[in-house]
C-alpha cells in the first residue's frame, strides 16, 4: 500500500517550462502547492561547456525517466512502430528549459484562427484534406496580457515590432500588437548576422532579431549572456538563460507555499466515484506514495501528459482519464522543422561564440504574412539564421562534395572551412490530421511495466509544400549573402519524437473534439487541468515554449479566481 500523504490544494505533475511557471501565481495567491518532479535540482556547477557531455553523452548526471519511457514511432497505422533512439526532453527542476535553445516567440494572431481566416481569405476548401484543425477558443488578444506577464517574470530579450499598433521596422512587423517593449533589448548580432540582415533587406524582406529567454543585459540580479557557444543542449554557467529553476520556481518556493518533491516518478492519477480527480500516485526510490489534492495539474511533456491520462483508468473513465469522448491522444502533431537548408560561404562566419537564440529572423514567409492565392498550401515558415557552432559538430560538417569526410584531403577541407558553414532553422506551420495521433504502445513498456506512448504521424502535403517553398526562400537568402554551396535536406514525412510536440489534450469549447476547455481544465473531470503544448491546436511557425508558459499562467490565474467552483 502506498503511503497516504496529507491533502494539499494543488498538485502539479512536472516542474518544467509550464508547471514551473504556473506554480508561482498559485503559490503567490496562498494556495498550498506540491510540485512533483522526476528530476533533481541542478545548478551552475553542472553546466560545464563540455560538448561531449552535453551533446553526445546526454548529461550523465540526470535522472533518466524520459529516456526509459522513450516513445515508439511509426508513420501510419499500417506500419510497425519502432522505439525512437532517444527522448528529446530532460528531467530536472526546470525541465528542458535548463538546456533548451530559449527562443521565446509569441504566436502570430493568424495561428489562433486558421480556419476562419483561411475561409475568409481563400475559401474553406483551402483547409487541407484530413486536417482536424479548429480555431482556438480565443484569439491572440486574449493571451496577450499573459505573454506580457511571462516575458517579464521569466525575462525575455527582443526587439518589438508592433507596440499597440505602432509598427517598428527594427522588429517583426508581422507580430500581433504588444502592449509594450520587451523587458530587455535583443541579443547582439555578429558581423555575419549584419551581413545576412543586409542580404534580406536587398531581397525586400524585413530581418529582425529574435526573442530569447536569455538576458541580453543584467536582469533579475543575474548577468547578461556570455555567448560562450555551448547553449545548445547546455545549461548556462552564468545563469543568463532564464530557465524556470532560477526564475519562477524559486519565487514560488519563497512564498512558503510551494513544496518541490524531486525524484518523484508519477505513475497514475486517482479518480473518485464522483468522477473528480482525488490525487496522484508516485514512486520515490521504490517507495510508493499517494498525494491527495483538490486540484491536479498535469504539466509533464506532451507525450507524458497523454500517457498519464491514458494510464489512469477508472470506473468513471474506463478508457483513461478525461477520455470518455475518445479525444486523448488525438490532434497530435510535431512541429515540422525538417527539410532544412545548409550553406557554405567563402569567408569565416566567426560563429564560435554565440547561441541558437541569437540571430536574424525573417517572417515574410511565415503564417499568412503573404498572399497564398497562387500557392497550394496555407501557412508558412519562419526563417532563422542563428549562431551555433561547437568543435565536434563543426568538424563533422557537410563537405558539400568538395572532399571525402575523413582523411588528409578532409583535413585540408576542414582547416579552411570549419567556420564557413551555416545551417538554417525553419519552423513551419504544422496542422493536426485525423491520421496522426498518440496512443499506448501495445507491446513496449517502461521498467515499471507501464506501456510507453506510440506516435503515429507523418507530415502531409501541406507541410511538405511549405518545406519546399521555404527552402527556395532560404536558398535565395544564402545566395544573396554570398554562399558558394547550398544543400537542402530531404522533405521526409515521418514525425518521430520532437521537442515541439503539440496536441493530444487539445483545448477548445467543443467537448466532442477537445479534452480541455478554454481555460485548460478537463471537459470531463472538472478539477483536472492540463498545462503545456499538449493543449495547443496549432503550432504557428515559432517555438512553443513562451505560448505554453503564457497559457500556464492563464490557467493558474483562472484557478485562483475560480477556486471555489473548481476545487469545491
Amino acid at each position, binding site marked *: 500500500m502506498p503511503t497516504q500523504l496529507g491533502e494539499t490544494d494543488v498538485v502539479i505533475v512536472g516542474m518544467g517550462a509550464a508547471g514551473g511557471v504556473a506554480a508561482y501565481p498559485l503559490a503567490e495567491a496562498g494556495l498550498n502547492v506540491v510540485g512533483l518532479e522526476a528530476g533533481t535540482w541542478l545548478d*551552475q*556547477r*553542472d*553546466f*560545464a*561547456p*563540455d*560538448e*561531449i*557531455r552535453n551533446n*553526445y*553523452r546526454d548529461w*550523465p548526471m540526470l535522472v533518466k525517466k524520459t529516456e526509459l519511457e522513450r516513445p515508439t514511432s511509426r508513420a501510419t497505422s499500417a506500419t510497425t512502430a519502432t522505439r525512437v533512439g532517444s527522448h528529446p526532453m530532460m528531467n530536472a527542476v526546470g525541465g528542458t528549459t535548463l538546456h533548451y535553445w530559449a527562443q521565446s516567440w509569441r504566436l502570430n494572431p493568424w495561428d489562433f484562427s486558421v480556419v476562419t481566416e483561411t475561409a475568409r481569405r481563400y475559401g474553406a476548401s483551402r483547409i487541407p484534406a484530413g486536417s482536424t484543425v479548429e480555431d482556438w477558443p480565443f484569439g491572440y488578444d486574449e493571451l496577450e496580457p499573459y505573454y506580457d506577464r511571462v516575458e517579464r517574470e521569466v525575462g525575455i530579450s527582443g526587439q518589438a515590432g508592433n507596440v499597440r499598433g505602432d509598427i517598428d521596422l527594427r522588429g517583426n512587423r508581422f507580430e500581433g500588437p504588444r502592449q509594450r517593449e520587451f523587458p530587455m533589448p535583443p541579443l*547582439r548580432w*555578429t*558581423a555575419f548576422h549584419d551581413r545576412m540582415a543586409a542580404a534580406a533587406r536587398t531581397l525586400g524582406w524585413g530581418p529582425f532579431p529574435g526573442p530569447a529567454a536569455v538576458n541580453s543585459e543584467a536582469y533579475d540580479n543575474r548577468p547578461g549572456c*556570455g*555567448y*560562450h*557557444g555551448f547553449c545548445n543542449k547546455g545549461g548556462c*554557467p*552564468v545563469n543568463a538563460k532564464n530557465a524556470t529553476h532560477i526564475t519562477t520556481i524559486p519565487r514560488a518556493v519563497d512564498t512558503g507555499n510551494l513544496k518541490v518533491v524531486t525524484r518523484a516518478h508519477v505513475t497514475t492519477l486517482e479518480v473518485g466515484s464522483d468522477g473528480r480527480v482525488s490525487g496522484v500516485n508516485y514512486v520515490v526510490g521504490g517507495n510508493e506514495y499517494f498525494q491527495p489534492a483538490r486540484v491536479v495539474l498535469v504539466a509533464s511533456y506532451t507525450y507524458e501528459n497523454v500517457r498519464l491520462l491514458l494510464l489512469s483508468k477508472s470506473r468513471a473513465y474506463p478508457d483513461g482519464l478525461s477520455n470518455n469522448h475518445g479525444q486523448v491522444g488525438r490532434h497530435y502533431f510535431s512541429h515540422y522543422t525538417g527539410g532544412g537548408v545548409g550553406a557554405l560561404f567563402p569567408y569565416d562566419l*566567426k560563429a*564560435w*561564440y554565440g547561441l541558437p537564440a541569437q540571430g536574424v529572423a525573417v517572417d515574410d514567409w511565415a503564417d499568412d504574412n503573404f498572399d497564398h492565392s497562387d500557392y497550394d498550401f496555407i501557412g508558412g515558415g519562419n526563417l532563422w539564421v542563428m549562431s551555433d557552432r561547437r*568543435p*565536434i559538430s*563543426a*568538424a*563533422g560538417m557537410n563537405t558539400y562534395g568538395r572532399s*571525402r*569526410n*575523413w*582523411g*588528409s584531403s*578532409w*583535413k*585540408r577541407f*576542414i*582547416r579552411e572551412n*570549419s*567556420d564557413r558553414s551555416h545551417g538554417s532553422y525553419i519552423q513551419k506551420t504544422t496542422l493536426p490530421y485525423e491520421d496522426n495521433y498518440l496512443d499506448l504502445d501495445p507491446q513496449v513498456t517502461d521498467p515499471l511495466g507501464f506501456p510507453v506512448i506510440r506516435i503515429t504521424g507523418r507530415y502531409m502535403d501541406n507541410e511538405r509544400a511549405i518545406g519546399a517553398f521555404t527552402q527556395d526562400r532560404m536558398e535565395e537568402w544564402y545566395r544573396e549573402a554570398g554562399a558558394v554551396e547550398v544543400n537542402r535536406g530531404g522533405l521526409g514525412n515521418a514525425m518521430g519524437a520532437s521537442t515541439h510536440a503539440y496536441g493530444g489534450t487539445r483545448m477548445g469549447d467543443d467537448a466532442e473534439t477537445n479534452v480541455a476547455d478554454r481555460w485548460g481544465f478537463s471537459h470531463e473531470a472538472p478539477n483536472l487541468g492540463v498545462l503545456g503544448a499538449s493543449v495547443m491546436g496549432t503550432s504557428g511557425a515559432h517555438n512553443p515554449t513562451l505560448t505554453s508558459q503564457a497559457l500556464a499562467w492563464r490557467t493558474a490565474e483562472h484557478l485562483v479566481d475560480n477556486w471555489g467552483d473548481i476545487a469545491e
Partner: protein
Amino acid sequence: MTLPPKDPRPAISRRDLLKTAGAAGAAALIPDAVGAVTEEAPALAPLLAGPMTNLTASETEILSAMVDRLIPTDELGSGALDAGVLQYIDRALSEAESDAAEAYRSGLAALDQYSRYSRGGPFIDLSTVDQDSALIDVQIGAATGAGAGFVGSSASFFNMVKSHTWQGMFGDPKYGGNVDFAGWDLINYPGIRLAVSPEDQRSLEADQLERARRSAYDFGLFE
C-alpha cells in the same frame, strides 16, 4: 606542428611499430624506439601510455590503423593517434560507451576479415591506398554481408568509430583525447571562454583574438 627531431639511428617504420605495439602490448615499446621514429611516423607517443583497458592488443592494432587513416598525421599536423583518440575510445568503453564494447569487438574483427577477403591481407598490412578503399567500402555499407561478419550494416560500425574519433579529436581534453589541443588547433577553434565581450567578438572578426587553450574543467567551477 613541429615534428620530432630526426635521429640518425636506423628508422623503424610506422607499421612495424604499430605491429609491435599490438603484438606485445604498447608497454613493450622501449623508449629508445621513439627516437627512431621517422618523419613518416611521429604519432606513437599516445601508444606509449600503456596497454588498453578494453581493447585487446590485436584490436588496438586494427583500430590504430583505422583511426590513423580517418585523421592522419600529415603536413597539416597531428592526427588522431597523436591526439589520443585511442585512449579516448578505450576509456569511453569503460564509461559512457560501455554498450559499444561488443560493437567494437565484432566490428574490428569484421574489418580485418573483410580486408583479408577483399584485399588479400590483414587490415594493418594493407597499403594506405588499400586501407582507404576498404574503409570506403565499410563506410558506404558495401562491406555488409560478404562473410565479413559485420553486425548489421558495415556503415553503422564505420559511423560509430568515426563519431568517437571526432569526439576524441575535437572534444574536451578531460576525456583523454585532444592532446595538446591538437583537434582545436586543426580547426582554428579560438577556445573555451565563459564570457565573450563585444570587443572579443570584434577581435575574433579581425583575426586578432588570442586562442584560449584550456579545458572547461580548468576554470575550477564545474563538477
